[in-house]
């Protein structure tokens, strides 16, 4: 079985996000970019399925500009067999991403597609669900445990009330939650090996996918600053201040 894994590049989770002064977006210049953490979990799960003998090949997919190659190399160093780089200079919204994946699914015929439940930049949480609908295959979202046997996948899902276990026919779409696994560390020799692994480059325009924004972002703003606190001497002054503000 072949597993297709979405591998998006986002602003690193350790970076303090800064909104551009004109509100047109967030600053990405000089900012560390790395794999969407849920996509690292997706890749780790695919690698574990391969190591268990359930899958033979793990293919990662990235959609983005030319310099995305270095990011895809990291996924290859983690252990993916090969990568597909869909090149576009434009930002890609969830529906467009799902349509791209559908084209790649038709081409690659994977037994399973594993995506992160959401990307930490736009937090959209849509691509996996949209892909399942377009592909007309089962979806198992927010997975915290995945088992595959006899052409079926059993997925434990994290839901508000607790855990839900579902069974679906393959091929299917799975989206990963935080507790599914802990991604492995990359080893130096594997970075070297990754340099010779193949990356297929496909131009976005050649896929015949309808582009264009379905959502329009009007502006970005930082959360309002907390105003300065007031120091009070004792409980009596605290009570007096609260009363004065009409809070007591």
């Amino acid at each position, binding site marked *: 079985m072949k597993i297709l894994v979405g591998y998006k590049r986002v602003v*690193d989770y*350790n*970076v*303090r996000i*800064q909104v551009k*002064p004109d509100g047109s977006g967030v600053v990405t*210049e*000089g*900012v*560390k970019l*790395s794999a969407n953490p849920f996509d690292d979990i997706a890749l780790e799960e695919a690698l574990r399925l391969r190591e268990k003998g359930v899958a033979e090949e793990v293919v990662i997919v990235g959609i983005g500009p030319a310099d995305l190659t270095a990011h895809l190399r990291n996924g290859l160093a983690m252990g993916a067999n090969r990568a597909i780089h869909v090149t576009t200079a434009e930002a890609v919204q969830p529906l467009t991403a799902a349509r791209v994946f559908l084209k790649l699914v038709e081409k690659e015929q994977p037994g399973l597609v594993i995506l992160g439940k959401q990307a930490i930049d736009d937090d959209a949480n849509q691509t996996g669900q949209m892909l399942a609908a377009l592909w007309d295959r089962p979806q198992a979202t927010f997975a915290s445990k995945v088992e595959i046997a006899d052409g079926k996948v059993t997925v434990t899902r994290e839901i508000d009330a607790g855990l839900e276990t579902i069974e679906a026919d393959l091929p299917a779409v799975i989206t990963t939650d935080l507790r599914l696994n*802990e*991604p*492995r*560390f*990359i*080893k*130096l*020799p594997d*970075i*070297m090996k990754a340099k010779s692994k193949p990356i297929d480059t496909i131009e976005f325009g050649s896929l015949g996918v309808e582009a264009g924004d379905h959502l329009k972002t009007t502006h970005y703003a930082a959360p309002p600053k907390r105003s300065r606190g007031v120091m009070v001497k004792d409980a009596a002054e605290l009570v007096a201040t609260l009363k004065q503000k009409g809070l007591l």
Partner: protein
Amino acid sequence: MTERETMEYDVVVVGAGPAGLSFAIRLKQLQPETTVCVIEKASTVGAQILSGAVIEPAPLDALLPGWRDNPPPICVPAGEDEFWLLSKTGGRKLPVPPGMNNHGNFIVSLGAMCAWLAPQAEALGVDVFPGFAAADNIYNEDGSVAGVRIGDMGVARDGTHKSGYTQGIDIKAKVTVLAEGARGSLTKQLIKRFGLDRDADPQGYSIGIKELWQVPAGRVTPGKIVHSFGWPADTSTYGGSFLYHLDGDRIALGYVSGLDYRDPQYKPWEAFQQWKNHPHVKPLLEGGNILSAGARAIVTGGYQSLPKVEMPGAILIGDTAGLLNVPKIKGTHQAIRSGMLAAEHLAANGLQAAGFDAALRASPAMAELKQVRNIKPGFKKGLWVGMANAAWETLTRGASPWTLKNKPDWCSLEKIGEYEAPKRDYVTRELPPRDRLAGVYFAATEHDEDQPVHLHVADTNICIERCSIEYDNPCTRFCPASVYEIVEDAMPDGSRGKRLQINAANCVHCKTCDIKDPYEIITWVTPEGGSGPNYQNL
């Protein structure tokens, strides 16, 4: 246990700063077939680089002749220089000392510049590995340096292996190039092992604390460079500020305190924050935002403290050797120069370290240090003697027949009650950050909490039984990130007692504790690769 994996290169470089990257680029320019890798503990190149930084471009012109057509992302030509002696409420503008005349120089973010250099090294075939910490030196049977051992990943706080445990590999090379920056942790071991400082004075350091601000439009004059001394430092503490106007309504500013300070109650971070509230500075910043902040030790021992920079199988370059020019407060041009010189030496000598020490000492980098060798030590006698001495040394271009001695920073502290504490004429601060914890937030520092503490204190009983009495635990004050705390706790016998708490996850890798602790019991080692601050454009 399985045998440790090994990778072999002709040359392994520790540290992707200006020295290490310039070295790698130059070596590949000269000998493309030589295999070179650069190991960097930060998760990405530049994320743990912190500098002013005004740089002299000549060495960069020599390394990358076309660089001006493709400059690093932050690169503002130096404009007007100002030099001030500050009082609490005002100041006097002084003539700019020759070393601080920046005409023809550039204000850069050294972090952004390194992130710009790394791909250029990679394009020449250098393997740059960010996110991997060189944790130890490894040696050949004959005692020469054989390379470095990468730190293990996935070790729990108690030393046990977590599920993702990954053993670090050994990188073996014909020659190891240490380019760790000031007070490198591997360099420190090598200096001791090979007695490299036998014929040198002890090394000296300062701590630089820096913030990058986004300020309201209209306040910034891109290229303007302002240095000051005087308030808030007392006359027996070596301290001064820098304030550089960048483009895009950004200002880089910081404060440098000599780590030879004597008052154990001195707080370098507080001195920086005080200076920001000076009437010359505060109006520039009010209403702005901090973009990034951090701290780093600076090497200031200069000419007389330079250790031998070669040993069998390894060499030292840049600030880990100690090449910063103190009166210029610049080390980047020296780092690039020494990196290039090292590459040229190794290329011409079949990758043999022998002879590099002599080559460096005969080079312009060393001549530059010799000329200014007496300026910083002169300030040990206080600000006014230091100023007079600096004027003399500058006028004579360092022709004095004497060389002033350096003493190690750890022994400069006075004991509580045995000195007259200087009066600190401080103000009530109004600009953020409110305290060190609020400040460290802007360093975006990140360490997995479940890993061994990377600040080794050899004997914590000393902290409670001696240091608290003799020096009132200065680690709780000199650390810019509040890593060290003395807390009161229930002891095993049920009584209340004090103990040292190390908040290692806050560490910004500045190395000040390793330098200044008065008992020399703190050792800074590399945490798990990729841990530590994530600076943006510092």
